[in-house]
């Protein structure tokens, strides 16, 4: 089975007055048809620019310096801007974090969706309206006629996010990129939206690239996930495998830092230090400065991806038998 989206060797950099700032450094991942792929990481790790780069929407002075983005086998980076316009919305659609700032406050919902339909299809006015109403119904909005004639401020946050999802779905794309789609919502509404995304994948075979900082969200809906740290994929695996057997010290650290019931009363395992400011300039492993198991090799060069098991990779020298033999963490020094 060939992948729907293949991101290979992606590098993204921003030009600044102090030289080039490398924000994404050799990212590789692929998304299969019909799956939800999670990209997890903390703020500043490069997850949002990665998803913007797929649609070639990185704002200046940033840009893709290296790599390929294959969508259905074709390299999006080689497309003309005219061809990209056709792909955006038609084949790949995007949902942003904050629905209220993504919808135009001075136009009614129906009008905004209508423009999208007319842009992307040859439907006449009546057909377009019918189509919009059916899609609004599809994303679980009540009383679609009323929603059609509402302004964004007349809807709740959850309803607005459903409208955004409807807008993404309206030209039946194969891939939806969702950048923190539930972060601005309350938990009970988040549960509704996540359930909707899952249902869309299962029923229509749409793929979703879900960007999030919340491991709980990943655990709930993603089939496979990759953990990003300072512009690099540090670990990738099927979600269940990733959360049950994390091998990279950063993934282990993230999981250990979560407050869960069993840890009540004891201090949480915090990851010491902070994210490096310019990870592109670091010669060795980007996590070395915060890693509890760091040894000499980590400062010398980037660890390559090591295979842990089928479909489970991690970039850590601890997985290299030759180098790490003498440096294996002792029992008790690891995160619980």
């Amino acid at each position, binding site marked *: 089975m060939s992948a729907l989206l293949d991101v290979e060797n992606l590098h993204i950099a921003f030009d600044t007055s102090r030289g080039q700032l490398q924000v994404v450094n050799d990212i590789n991942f692929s998304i299969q048809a019909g799956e939800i792929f999670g990209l997890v990481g903390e703020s500043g790790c490069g997850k949002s620019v990665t998803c913007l780069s797929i649609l070639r929407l990185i704002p200046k002075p940033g840009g893709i310096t290296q790599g390929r983005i294959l969508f259905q086998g074709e390299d999006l980076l080689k497309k003309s801007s005219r061809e990209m316009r056709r792909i955006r919305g038609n084949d790949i659609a995007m949902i942003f974090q904050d629905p209220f700032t993504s919808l135009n406050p001075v136009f009614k919902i129906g009008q905004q969706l209508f423009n999208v339909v007319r842009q992307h299809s040859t439907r006449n006015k009546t057909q377009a309206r019918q189509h919009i109403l059916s899609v609004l119904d599809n994303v679980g909005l009540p009383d679609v006629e009323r929603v059609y004639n509402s302004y964004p401020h007349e809807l*709740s946050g959850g*309803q607005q996010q459903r409208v955004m999802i409807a807008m993404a779905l309206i030209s039946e794309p194969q891939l939806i990129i969702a950048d923190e789609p539930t972060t601005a919502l309350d938990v*009970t509404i*988040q549960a509704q939206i996540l*359930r909707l995304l899952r249902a869309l994948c299962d029923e229509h075979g749409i793929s979703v690239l879900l960007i999030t900082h919340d*491991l709980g969200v990943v*655990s709930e809906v993603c089939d496979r996930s990759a953990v990003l740290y300072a512009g690099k994929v540090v670990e990738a695996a099927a979600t269940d495998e990733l959360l049950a057997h994390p091998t990279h010290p950063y993934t282990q650290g993230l999981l250990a830092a*979560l407050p869960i019931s069993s840890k009540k009363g004891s*201090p949480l395992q*915090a990851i010491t230090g902070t994210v490096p400011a310019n990870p592109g300039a670091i010669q060795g492993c980007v996590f070395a400065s915060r890693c509890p198991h760091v040894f000499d090799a980590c400062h010398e060069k980037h660890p390559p991806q090591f295979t842990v098991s089928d479909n489970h990779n991690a970039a850590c020298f601890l997985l290299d038998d030759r180098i790490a033999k003498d440096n294996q963490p002792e029992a008790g020094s690891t995160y619980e």
Partner: protein
Amino acid sequence: MSNTLIQVNNLVKHFALPGGWLTGQRRVVHALEDVTIDIQQGEVLGLVGESGCGKTTLGRCILQLEKPTAGQVLFGNTDLTRLSKRALRQKRRDMQIVFQNPLASLSPRRTIQQSLIEPLQTHDFPKEEWLSRIHAMMQRVGLGKQHLDRYPHELSGGQLQRISVARALLLEPKLLVLDEPTSALDVSIQAQIINLLDELRHEIGLTYLFISHDLSVVEHLSDRIGVMYLGKLVEIGQTADIINNPAHPYTKALLQSVPRVGVSRDPSHTPLEGNVPSPIYPPSGCRFHTRCPIAETLCTQTEPQLELLDTGQWTACHFTNKETA
């Protein structure tokens, strides 16, 4: 009960909306409706609920940062709502607050040291003690002297939140209100701040009112948890009871909505339908009845009061016992 630090009685807070004065139909946001709650000396009381439920307003009303519409806030034996401005300013030394976004709550044009001196100045601490107090406090929250001459934009979010905590603790308050102190932080940094708060509490014997929408964080820190919905306290009790035996249907739904790592959700669970109603026109009877899975006619007419259950928590629901049985 042992030692009550704060006793809130029948607190009401309405915010009047602009307009409507011509037609005589003034619209009012019912932010808090008849809330009675107590905070014991030395405990951490967690307050959870979704946006707009009134948890922040309750925190602010306790500190008198908002003037309550009705009700009492007793701090020891004094009713804070009746104090003069001058007397209140004195009292403020005993109760401090840490806000959600540290970058927004520290002045961008002042160095950290300038920001930290202000509370000491306001409360007439002897000038020669200022620096020694600040240095000791910075060390206590895990920062050094070198940070004092920096400006907020030069520090990370985690460091800034440590400074907000330091600023609040400089006055040696008895009560610290923490309003979503970790929501703006990444998980790995959040853990550092939670650990710091937990240590400080045990060392100094502080009392916290911990406000958050994140149930897992509240569960980790709190001795007791209060759950709010649309301006009402719907359930309150010991942390373990609330988490393991939630009695109110809203608490149950809230707990089930939180995505947890490694816990696969019960497939039969259906997420709560609909949205939180507008606090301008709150529903009649039980405010949760529009979304409640077990609501009956009674719920639309009569408002349930908090009742003590056998399991030890207080719950405001007509049908709790029926459902738990």
